[in-house]
């Protein structure tokens, strides 16, 4: 994971025309340092999404919508014997706090909510809205 600071270089070594390649070796699919996978924007975050496993229905909408591939999944077999991706958590090294996941979450009480950065996750789960 490279931060912009770690990628700093001099004028004679900058990428020609600021054209950034995705792969260092396209044949073997070796990602370049410019590939978004190797680049963190987590320091942009002012609010974080907190994930509530209790309410999650594993629709995977958040996993699809997340622009930074933050959602960690586990392969499980569901009741009907089919493979399914189970959401297990959020990788805060990748998350920039855009809140798209909260927006797409379809459960009646959202299983994802934004909390200030300083609030502990366990504390956040205690503050979760309850059913009336």
């Amino acid at each position, binding site marked *: 994971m490279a931060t*912009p*600071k770690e990628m*700093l*270089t*001099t*004028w*004679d070594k*900058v990428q*020609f*025309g*600021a*054209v*950034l*390649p*995705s*792969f260092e070796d*396209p044949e073997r699919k070796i990602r370049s340092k*410019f590939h978004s996978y190797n680049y963190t924007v987590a320091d942009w975050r002012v609010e974080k999404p907190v994930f509530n496993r209790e309410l999650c229905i594993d629709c995977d909408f958040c996993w699809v919508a997340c622009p930074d591939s933050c959602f960690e999944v586990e392969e499980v077999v569901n009741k009907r014997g089919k493979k399914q991706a189970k959401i297990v958590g959020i990788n805060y090294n990748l998350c920039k706090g855009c809140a798209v996941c909260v927006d797409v979450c379809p459960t009646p009480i959202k299983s994802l909510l934004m909390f200030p950065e300083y609030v502990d996750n366990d504390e956040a789960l205690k503050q979760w809205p309850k059913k009336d």
Partner: protein
Amino acid sequence: MAERYELKQKEVWDGNMAAAHALRQAQVDVVAAYPITPSTPIVQNYAQFLADGYVDGEFVMVESEHSAMSACVGAAAAGGRVATATSSQGYALMVEVLYQASGMRLPIVMTVVNRALASPLNIHGDHADLYLGRDAGWIHVIANNPQEAYDMTLCAFRIAEDERVRLPVTTNQDGFLVSHTAQVVEPLQDEDAYKFIGEYKPLNPMLDTKNPVTYGAQTEEEWHFEHKANQHKALMESPEVIKEVFDEFEKLTGRKYNLVESYKLDDADIALVLMGSAYETAMLAVDKAREEGIKVGLLMPRVFRPFPYNEVAEKLKNVKAVAALDRSMPMGTTGALYNEVAGALAANGQSAIMTNYIYGLGGRDTTVEHILEVIKETNENAKAGKRVTPLQGFVNLRGPKLSFN
């Protein structure tokens, strides 16, 4: 495969037709353009060539010049040889994207026909648009007649696409005075011209889907300076490539072009510096002045950017007085050509007496007599050994004499 266009040894072409034929011979992949007077015939002729099967390429109709240059940027990033044409207001609308093209190092060729900028509206030739694009990071090459418009456009592809340069190039010709003046042009045959320009070699093409790249990435304070310095270096070092291309072109055609053109400058006491069609008018004025015993010479930077300041200073080493003639209103200072030449002389410890003249705005006539007057005034400065004429004068301006000191 494109049809071969039958060309005679000598053709009668205006500057627009000459530029259009050069684009055709380069077999440009994509031309995206929005026609504007006086460069309309370049676009029109090119479209005609394409419709008649003389070009294997795409002509993209767009809804504005901003879109035209944007489409050019896209096509060039995708990995094609790209060209366009514009003038004046269209050029002004393109400016935002001109910086994008040069920053992404896309070797686009733009055949510019120089025209005044409104307001008041004017369709005739002056260098307002050329000066507007001055800092856009493009190479600007000047052509004084249809033959040069043809030659410079061919050379422009070679310069732009050289791997040491990879920068966009404009070729500039004066609106109507060159673009619509039919003269004898000696073209190359299609195969010779294409051989000179060569096959296009794409660099980081976006259409290579196996190796995806990002164009137009954001660089903030940690990056921007380094990228711009890198680009500036390519421009500053491009004269080497330009010289090579001009040398090779001479071998092919016998027509010699230089970074800095001069006329009767070797024994001159005074010199005039100017660009464009007026350079040829000034040649006649120089001949007349020399009959009267005034030792005068001419100098023209063939490339306005990168400005060949050391070559200019070297050529002006022995002159006592220099008049720089700008075909654009500098609006609040001395003309750009004056500034460049004065800077070049100062940097080399030379102290010729410098004056500035503004001439020919909006296509105003500049005749041999007008330039003779400038020569005589400059000669007075040389004789006096100090500046006795105004710092900035105006040529062929109606009304009470206007000047600034």
